[in-house]
């Protein structure tokens, strides 16, 4: 069982970057009739999202967020001993984008750097790795970079996915400190549902062909190619509502906390319909469950830290108990409890 416990490790700083370009869901998607778009937006709650242009990649967003955080906090770059880059829209298939960022950020060559290929659960998984590194006495600081350009891999003509996703990056600085107290992580996987969210082509199982780029009509009037994400939304929804409330209760039990003792529950920002259902099933007060999908959509592994950095940014003048849960592509599910002890949170960066 992948249950991890840490003591005296935490997030000292957090930054977020998004593209300047805003896409308005009610009016900008010309592939759908306006009343159809209205109906979808009412259900999913995503009013707008940020979209990169062709030349902007995940690492560009991650680099901007990291530069701002390190600069604002006046961090000695030689003290960064590990960089973890979590993304499923990395700049290249080879090499790892994290290593490119190690160089661009001027981090020492003694810094470990690598990529993690996880989506909606990726912040919690990545944070568990960052905490693991940071417990080592020879590691001073760890950068956890979550960065996604999801709009590049979803068809805007697919009614199941064409209104949901946005682009963004966040950076967490992780280090040791008595103030952080105990934290608990629970990390699960269900590969039997791997095809629920999948880009079928472009790897080595199904290499790209001229045909794989052709747009095809899918059941339910959706259009996408095999180079774009196919999502079985019904299957994902069933997985989430069956597993996430139970998972959250399990982390509360591990952390020996009553539900009311947690200050904020920050969930992966899937969409309003799914997130509100999870909130109601857990009987959580609205005030304790911040959202950011209205303005940024579903940004995959970025969505949890992006919500903290934008929706509850000003609430950390005192230490706050946080429970996070990320769920989705894999399928993969990860939840954690930790204390955010007055971290430095930068203003949102727009590039």
């Amino acid at each position, binding site marked *: 069982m992948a249950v991890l416990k840490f003591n005296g490790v935490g997030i000292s700083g957090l930054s977020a970057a998004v593209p300047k370009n805003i896409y308005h869901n009610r009016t900008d998607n010309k592939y759908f009739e306006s009343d159809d778009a209205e*109906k979808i937006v009412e259900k999913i709650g995503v009013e707008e999202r940020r979209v990169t242009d062709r030349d902007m990649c995940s690492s560009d967003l991650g680099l901007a967020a990291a530069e701002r955080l390190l600069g604002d906090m006046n961090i000695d770059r030689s003290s960064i001993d590990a960089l973890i880059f979590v993304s499923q829209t990395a700049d290249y298939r080879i090499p790892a984008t994290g290593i490119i960022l190690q160089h661009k950020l001027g981090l020492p060559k003694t810094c470990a750097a690598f990529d993690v290929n996880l989506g909606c659960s990726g912040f919690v998984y990545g944070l568990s790795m960052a905490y693991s590194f940071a417990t080592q006495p020879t590691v001073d600081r760890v950068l956890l970079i979550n960065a996604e350009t999801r709009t590049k891999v979803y068809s805007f003509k697919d009614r*199941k996915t064409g209104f949901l996703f946005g682009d963004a990056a966040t950076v967490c600085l992780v280090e040791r400190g008595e103030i952080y107290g105990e934290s608990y992580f629970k990390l699960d996987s269900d590969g039997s549902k791997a095809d629920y969210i999948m880009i079928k082509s472009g790897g080595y199982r199904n290499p790209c062909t001229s045909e794989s780029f052709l747009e095809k009509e899918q059941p339910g009037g959706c259009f996408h190619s095999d180079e774009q994400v196919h999502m079985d939304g*019904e*299957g994902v*929804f069933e997985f989430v*509502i069956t597993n996430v409330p139970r998972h959250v209760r399990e982390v509360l039990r591990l952390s020996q906390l009553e539900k009311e003792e947690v200050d904020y529950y920050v969930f992966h920002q899937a969409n309003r*319909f799914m997130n509100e*259902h999870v909130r109601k099933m857990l009987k959580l007060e609205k005030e304790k469950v911040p959202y950011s999908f209205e303005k940024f959509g579903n940004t995959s592994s970025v969505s949890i830290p992006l919500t903290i950095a934008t929706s509850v940014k000003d609430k950390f003048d005192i230490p706050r108990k946080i429970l996070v849960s990320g769920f989705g592509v894999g399928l993969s599910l990860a939840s954690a409890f930790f204390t955010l002890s007055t971290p430095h949170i930068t203003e949102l960066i727009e590039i």
Partner: protein
Amino acid sequence: MLNKIKELFEDVLERDSGTVNPDDKFREYEEWDSLAYLSVIAKIDEDFGFVIPRDDFQKIITIKDLAGYLESHQ
């Protein structure tokens, strides 16, 4: 149970009262789509504390079938 399911469909699909009948094949409703499916599954979870597995739901054809299924799983 049958009345509860009828009301649930009227509520989720925003249909007028009395327009959902026991023998209706609900997938034939004009309002039925993937969002309606998710809404019905979510409402049943809220009201009955039970998530109907998709494989089971696919075998349910009418409103009456659904009520019977839920009764047998209470």
